[in-house]
Each structure stands twice: as structure tokens, then as C-alpha cells.
């Protein structure tokens, strides 16, 4: 049994324990060590998956229907690598941002969140997915409430309520699936859901629940307040990974459980909601006054893009062209990665600016380009990826989605893909405009601590690398791609 997996799973949890018990410098150092060990383990497992394809580990030694299995395919591995990467960056950022142990409670919650995120991508049992999602939600709500003022607390309460509402709907769906098929394991469930009153109900409840947790357009009401009021490292993790976790589960359900070609109409409903999300989110982001709210609404918009995978992938399979479906799948996943990295970079930048400039109102950012050039450059590069301009990962994703959409003649998706990019450029460059303005007297502002700028720059470098050499992540996406013709690789 590969040695890396236990460290990958246990690392963050152990770090949480240690940082809870020993709040001093040693405790922090030890927990950081454990966390990095888990990140390295993630890398090791990815190499193994790269070499030998999909890996399955039966937990506690029992087989699939009885026990719980860990299934790591290309998509899961990419998400694990993403979590490891971004969490490392966020941890280094938080070290500088929180200035020593001003916030002892931050670290245990943060490591628990990291550990929970790892588990959700590994496990392939629908009920343990529910428990993982609950674990993530509680850790995230705990983290959001850390900033302590009244509005942040009510935002986190509202977030908790809506998240739990989503999980309960998901739980009802799980109950019906279990009642109908008799097993809880995803791989065993694939294709056996059939089409009856209970399967339709189950799928709609699960989708609705997870859409609520992913903040798809009509259900996005809780996200802006929660993500913008949480402390910067937490909001980075929220936007980049927590939201993606429930989307990942939805992807698993939609493409592994039911055969995608059958429910085209529902897929297009999700696509339509996605389109509405892109337009509504971008418009809202352009109107916001505070930087973090802009980034939060931009998350709402970018999540809209993610939901394009359902109609495009399903449509391609319905048309019997598996290479089109492959392109849609690759585009979608690269978009998840690119958005995660870009959004976390943006939140970290807004956190850094908040700390150095005292306020994150955009109008107060005058002269920022001179005082904090690197941070603004990072915001620019992350913005470029959101808009989908070439040297970034976002462009590759948009290019793949565009080509599939054109091939399947979905002109509406093509139009929204392009229009979304332009609308994104409005709020990205709006911040740059203000920061280029040179105020009369230049505010004397402290330099951004090294660890914060290093983590931000590391994220932007990853973005550019993904743009210039996307071959490696693309290679990963094909492992275990849920095409009817089995594993294409």
C-alpha cells in the first residue's frame, strides 16, 4: 500500500491537533512541517497515478459495498495537487498576514479545512462525501467567523444555514439512492441508477443541494458576504477550493452516476443558470466599491463558467463525438484549476492591500501601483487569467470550451464565453486604473512582508506556467475520464 497516502490524509489533521495543543512557535513550526509533508505526499501520489493510472484503496481492508474505498483518478489527483499547492501558498501568506500568534485559533481550523478538502477528493462513497462536506462547511464557517465583527458573524451564520440546507437535501438524495440501489459506492453505482421516480428525485435533490453549496446563480446569496468578510487566507481557500469541492462532488454524481446523454434538458438548465451567473456576477462585480466584494462576485461569475461542462460534455456524448467531449472535459478542469489559482491570488492580494493601505475600498487604492508594484502585477496576471487572455491558464480553458461550443453549434455559450471575458476585464482593470492614479501626496505605507509577496508571486508563476505549458495538467485530465467507452488513455 503506497506510503504516501496516509501522510497525505493524516498530515493536515495531525498539524491541526499539534497547532491546537501547542500554540507557541514550536507548535506552529511542527504543524507547518506536517502540512508540507502532506503536500509532498500529494506530489508523490500524483507521480504514481501518472504512471499507473487510476488507483483504488479499500479503507479498513473491506470491499466496496461493505467498506469505503479511496479512488484516485486524474481529476481527483489534479484537485489534490491544487489543494496542496494553494494551501501551501495560503499557509505561507497567513504566517505573514497574521503576524505571529495574534490569531491562535486560526491555525487549527485552517489545517482541519485543508485535511477535509483532501478527503473530499479521495473518497468515492456518497455518504462519506456528505460527512466530508459537513466537515469542510463547519471548518469554513469557523474560519469565516474569525474576523469577529457583527456583520462577519451574521454572514457566517447565514453561510452555515445555507450550507447545511444544501447538505440535508444531498442527504435525502443519498437516502433515496441507497434505498434504490442498495450500495453507497460511486463506482458501483455508475449506470445502475436507471430511470425511475426515485432516481429522478434523488438526482434533482442532490444537484439542488450541491448547487446551493457551490453558490450557482440563484443560490449565490450567501457567498459574497461570507467570502468578502472572512480573513484573507480563509476567503482565498473558500473561493478557490471549498466552492470547488461541492462542484467536484456534483461532477462525480452527474457523470459517473447517471448516464449523461439521457438528461440533456437538465444539463442545459444548469448551463443556462451558469450563463446567468456569468453575466450577473460580472455586472455585480463591476458595481462593487470594496475590493474583496469585487473578487467575491467574480467568483459567482466564474462558477457560472464551470457549469458549462454539463451541457457541453453531455451534448458531445449525445452527438456521439467522444473527442469533443474530451475537449469539454479538459477545458472544464483546466478552468477549475486556473480559476482556483487566480482567485486565491486575488484574495491574497486584496488581503495584502487591506493590511498595507488600511482599507480595501477601491477609491483609496490611489498610488498603489507605485507603493506595491508586485502585488498589483499579481492582481493583473490573475485578472488576465480570469478574462482568459493568452499567457495564462484561463486562456487555454476558454479556448477548449470555445472550440467545443463552436463545434456543437451552441452559439449562446460562445457569446457568453466571450462577453464574460470582456465584463471580467471591466472589474479587473478598474482596480488597476485606480492604482495607477498618482495622488497628490503619496501615502507612506509599510512594505508588504516577504512571506506574503512570495506566496502571491508563486501563485502567479503557476498561472503563467499553466498558460505556457498546459500539456502536463491536460495529460492528467484524461486519466479516468468518465467516457462511456471506458478509460480513453
Amino acid at each position, binding site marked *: 500500500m503506497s506510503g504516501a497516502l496516509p501522510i497525505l490524509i493524516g498530515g493536515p489533521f495531525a498539524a491541526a491537533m499539534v497547532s491546537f495543543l501547542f500554540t507557541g512557535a514550536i507548535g506552529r513550526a511542527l504543524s507547518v512541517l506536517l502540512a508540507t509533508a502532506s503536500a509532498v505526499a500529494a506530489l508523490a501520489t500524483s507521480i504514481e497515478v501518472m504512471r499507473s493510472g487510476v488507483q483504488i484503496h479499500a479503507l479498513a481492508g473491506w470491499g466496496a459495498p461493505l467498506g469505503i474505498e479511496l479512488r484516485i483518478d486524474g481529476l481527483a489527483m489534479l484537485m489534490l495537487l491544487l489543494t496542496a499547492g494553494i494551501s501551501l501558498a495560503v499557509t505561507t501568506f497567513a504566517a505573514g498576514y497574521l503576524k505571529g500568534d495574534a490569531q491562535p485559533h486560526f491555525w487549527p481550523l485552517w489545517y482541519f479545512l485543508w485535511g477535509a478538502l483532501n478527503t473530499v477528493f479521495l473518497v468515492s462513497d456518497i455518504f462519506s462525501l456528505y460527512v466530508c462536506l459537513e466537515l469542510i462547511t463547519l471548518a469554513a464557517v469557523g474560519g469565516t467567523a474569525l474576523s469577529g465583527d457583527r456583520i462577519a458573524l451574521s454572514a457566517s451564520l*447565514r453561510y452555515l*444555514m*445555507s450550507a447545511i*440546507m*444544501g447538505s440535508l*437535501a444531498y442527504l435525502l438524495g443519498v437516502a433515496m439512492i441507497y434505498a434504490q440501489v442498495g450500495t453507497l459506492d460511486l463506482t458501483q453505482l455508475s449506470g445502475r441508477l436507471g*430511470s*425511475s*421516480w426515485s*432516481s*429522478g*428525485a434523488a*438526482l*434533482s*435533490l442532490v*444537484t*439542488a443541494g450541491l*448547487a*446551493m453549496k457551490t453558490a*450557482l446563480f*440563484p*443560490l*449565490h*446569496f*450567501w457567498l*459574497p*458576504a461570507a467570502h468578502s468578510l472572512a480573513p484573507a487566507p480563509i476567503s482565498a481557500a473558500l473561493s478557490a477550493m471549498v466552492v470547488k469541492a461541492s462542484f467536484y462532488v456534483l461532477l462525480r454524481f452527474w457523470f459517473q452516476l447517471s448516464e449523461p446523454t*439521457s*438528461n*440533456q*434538458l*437538465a444539463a442545459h*438548465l444548469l448551463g443556462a*443558470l451558469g450563463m446567468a451567473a456569468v453575466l450577473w456576477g460580472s*455586472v*455585480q462585480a463591476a*458595481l462593487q466599491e470594496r475590493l474583496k466584494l469585487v473578487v467575491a462576485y467574480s467568483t459567482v461569475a466564474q462558477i457560472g463558467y464551470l457549469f458549462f461542462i454539463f451541457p457541453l460534455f453531455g451534448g458531445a456524448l449525445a452527438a456521439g463525438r467522444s473527442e469533443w467531449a474530451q475537449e469539454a472535459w479538459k477545458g472544464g478542469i483546466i478552468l477549475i484549476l486556473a480559476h482556483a489559482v487566480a482567485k486565491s491570488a486575488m484574495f491574497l492580494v486584496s488581503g495584502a492591500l487591506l493590511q498595507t493601505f488600511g482599507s480595501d475600498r477601491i477609491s483609496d487604492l490611489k498610488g498603489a501601483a507605485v507603493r506595491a508594484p508586485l502585488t498589483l502585477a499579481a492582481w493583473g496576471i490573475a485578472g488576465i487569467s480570469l478574462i482568459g487572455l493568452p499567457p495564462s491558464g484561463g486562456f487555454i480553458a476558454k479556448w477548449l470550451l470555445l472550440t467545443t461550443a463552436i463545434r456543437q453549434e451552441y452559439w449562446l455559450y460562445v457569446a457568453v464565453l466571450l462577453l464574460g471575458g470582456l465584463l471580467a476585464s471591466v472589474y479587473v482593470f478598474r482596480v488597476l486604473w485606480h492604482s495607477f492614479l498618482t495622488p497628490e501626496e503619496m501615502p507612506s505605507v509599510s512594505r508588504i512582508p516577504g512571506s506574503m509577496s512570495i506566496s502571491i508571486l508563486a501563485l502567479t508563476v503557476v498561472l503563467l506556467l499553466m498558460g505556457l505549458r498546459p500539456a502536463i495538467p491536460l495529460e492528467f485530465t484524461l486519466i479516468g475520464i468518465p467516457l462511456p467507452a471506458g478509460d480513453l488513455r
Partner: protein
Amino acid sequence: MNGAILLVSALIPLVLAITGLLNGARVAMDRITPWAPLPALLTALIAPSLQVSMPSLLFGAEFDLDALGRVFLGLSAVLWLAAGHFSCGYFENRKSERRHRFFFLLTMSGNLGLTVAADAVTFYSFFALMTFSAYPLVIHDGTENSRRAGRSYLRLAILGEMLLLSGLLLATSQAGSTEFSALPKAIALAPNRNTIIALLLAGFGVKAGLVPLHAWLPLAHPAAPAPASAVLSGTMIKAGVLGWLRVLPLGDLESSTWSGILLASGIFMNLYGAICGFVQVRPKEALAYSSVSQMGYLTLAAGLALEPDGVAPAAIAACAAYTVHHGIAKAALFLGVGALSHADGPRVRVLLLTGSLYCGLSLAGFPLTTGAYAKWLLKSIPAGKTWNAWASPLLLVTSIATAFLVARIIMLLVRLQPDQVKHAYGFPLAMRLLPAWGSLVLLGVLGPWLLPIALRSAGLHVTSFSALEHIGGGAALVLWTTPLLYIGRRLWLRTAAQPAIPPGDLLTFVGSKLERLTPISKFLAVFTPWKKPFSRFTQIRTEGLIKAVVRMEEAQTRWDFGMIALALTWTTLWVFLHWRTG
């Protein structure tokens, strides 16, 4: 190597102009400039007929010293030499003379260059160089009048350039190459040859003073200083004629419509110029109009050259002869006017006046003058019966008109008061100006004998001058003009403050009409007033929209909306999922 001489002779003035700019070389330049055209004169006289092509220059430049080129080069060189020397003493101070000299040399280089150019593009380049660098000469003294003249000169020059460019383009697209040897034939065969010929005629016509396009001439020549206007009238307007002779399909056309048109316009130009000149009050304007009328003869000759029945060589020879004659006479007159305005002693005035009188008579074509010889050559062009019938009466009438104009000019010259110009050089001014003027008048006097020799040596076969035939023709002219002059003496003797027809007749008339027409910028101003409310309107709309959007967003963040949305989502999903299965 020998080909290089051609290019060098044309480019020496250009090089000198540029070296003149350097601060140190100023004094040295004062002595060298007058002799700048000398190499060109020498090439014209002694150089063998040369043919040179430089592939890398422009689109493969060709230079060819053929007969026509040699004549024009010689004439231009002589006149530029005279004007150069004349200008040395003419200006009031050193600074303005230097500025004048820079552009003087540029124009000279352009003029000399175009005579030897053998392909359309090189010709056009030198032509443009000459035209544009002549502009500063026209507005040299900086008064408002010369600025206005300069503006009209430039506008019409640009119009001419553009017409010429389109004509040459159309011709080259037919001919496939830009050489002058190929162009005429290609134009003759071209389906749209009428448009090409019209464009070329108009293009060169602006420079040659073809009537509707001549309006800049009476404005520009008087405004320019004397040496400049001498050269302007002497050789530069001749460049237009050279252009016609090079490009137009002489003798290759079937129909004689074009030659008919040219003949008619030549005659009309002659008479129109004479009439306008006659009413002028200042000698320079009168001289300018006399140039316009004399160019009528050249247009006449060009028209004859266009005759379909191959009379081109004779017509070209006659045209060349007339060009030389007119060039020298007109330049002498202009220099005379310049000298007169500086002459202080009575003796010098008498000398200048007699010289000018001789030149005037030569212009009118009195016997034993180059004018008579040139007119005789024109008459003797064997261009079909119509021309033979009409040639002598026409030439007679035009000569009489010219005679009247000459009389008017001489009278104006007599009345000209010298304006008080202080002497920059400390010795009497006339001393500097006379030699240049005198040499020209002398050339004029020796003209009838020198001209045929020069033309024949250049390669144009032309019958030599024999006093006998001229006496007969000339006698008829004298018999007619002297009584008429006597009858109309009140006309040409009267003085008037304002000329009946203002100089630049057509242009000033049309120009004033244009000014009243609201300029385009006012036209655009009409639109700007209601631009303001439109942007105001859009602004209100967008603010309203933003408020609505923000309100909707607030509504959405309320909890119940979220729950409704959730319920809505799973119900629609359930319905859609079952749509297919149900």
C-alpha cells in the same frame, strides 16, 4: 562614366544648396552659387548624346540627352546662369539673399534634372522638386500679397501634381514600364486614352499656364523677386511643354480632335493673355500675362505635333525654337524690370529701356528678330491644308495683339519710378546687374543666326534663317501694326490706378466666392450643440439601470429568496429529469 556627367550636372546645385546650410561654408558659397549651372551648360553644348540607366535609383532611373533634352537643358542653364549672377547684387541684405539662394539652387537642380530625365518617375521627381522649392521663391519678401500669391501657386501646383500623377499612373499601367520611349505608344493604344491625355494635358497645363489653370502665373511672377520671376517665366513654365512633348503620343493618334482642341486653346490663350495684360497697371503683371499669351504659341505647336499625319518632328523643332526665343526674351524683360527698379543714373535707364524695347519687338515678331524666325518656323509646319490656309492670318492677328501688349509694357516701364533701395555692396548697383542683363539681350539680338545653328547641332533639322523671306512677312506686319498703334495710342498710354481685370482674374473671382461659403469646420460645429443632451440622456438611463440592478441584488440576498430559488431549482430539475423518463 560618361553617364554620370548627366546626373552630376543636375545634382551639383542640390549639393551646393545643402553645403550652403553649414555655418562655416556661407562666405565661400556667395562666390560659387552663380556658376552652379555652368556644368549643365557645358554638357548641353559639348557632351555627346548620352544614354544612362541606374536600376537602383527610384524605379530604375533613365537619363537621356536627346535633341529635345539638349535644347531645353541649354536654355535652362543659360537662364539660370544669368539669373544667378543677377541675384548676386539684387537683394537688400545678406540674410534674405542666403535664404533665397538655398531654394534658388533647389529649383535650379529640379529644372535641370527634369530636362534630362528619360523615365516618368525621375521626371516627376525633379518636376515636384522644382515646383515645391519654387514656392519659397514666390513668397520671398513676406508681404501679405506675396503670401496670397504663394497660396494660390501652391494650390494649383498640387492640383497639377495630382492630375499628373494619376495620368502617369494610368499610362504606366498600360505600358508596363515607366520609360518615356514606351509611354506614348502605350497611351495611343490604351482604351481609356482620352482620359489619360486629358489628365496629362491638364497636369502639365497647370505649369504651362493653359488658360483655365493659368491663374497662379499673374499672381506668382510679380510677387517673386526679379531673378526668380525671370527663371519662372523663362524655363520653369517650359517644363510643362517639355512634359507634353515627352509623354503625349505625338503623331500616333488616329483622330485629330486633340490637336484641334490644343490649337483652339492656344489661340484663345494668346488673345486672352494679351487682353488681360493690356489692362494691367504694373509692368510685372503685364509681362506675366504676356508669358501666358506667348505660351499659347507653344500650345499651338504642341497641338500641331499631335496631328495624326506625322508632322511631329517639324512641329517639335518649331516648338523648341519658339521656347528658346521666348525664354531669352522674357527673361531679359523681367531682369530689365528688376534692374530698372534699381537703376539710379539716367544713362543706365536709357540703356535698359532700349534693350527692353528690342526684346519687346522680338516678342512681337518684328522682322530680323528671333521672334520673327520662330513664328516663321511655326508657319512653315506642313500640317495639312487647314493649317496652311489659316496659319498666316492667325499669326498676323496674334502678332498684332502682342505688339499692342509690348507697347503697353514699354510705356509702363518708362513710367516706372525706382524704389529707394540702399546698396548692400557699396558700389553702384547697375554695375552688378547690367552684365547679366546685357548678355541676355545680346543673345536675343544674335538670335536669328545663332538659333538655327544651335538647334541643328542639337539634332533638330530646321531650315536656316534667310533675311529675304522675312522682309516680305515682316513688312506686312509692320504695315498693319504702326497705324493701329497710332489709332489706339490713347488706350495704351492711359494710366489707371486699378486694373480693370485684377491679376489672377479667374482665381480671385472664384476664390472670393469660396470664402463666403461656410467653411467645413463651421459645418461640423452645427452638430456639437445637441451632442451634450444625448450623453446626458444616456447617463440618466445607466444610473437608473444600476440602481435597479443593485436593488435586485439586495432583494436576492434575503433568506427567503434563497429558499424559493432552492425549491425552484429542485422542482425544475425534477420536472426536466422526468420529462424524458416519465
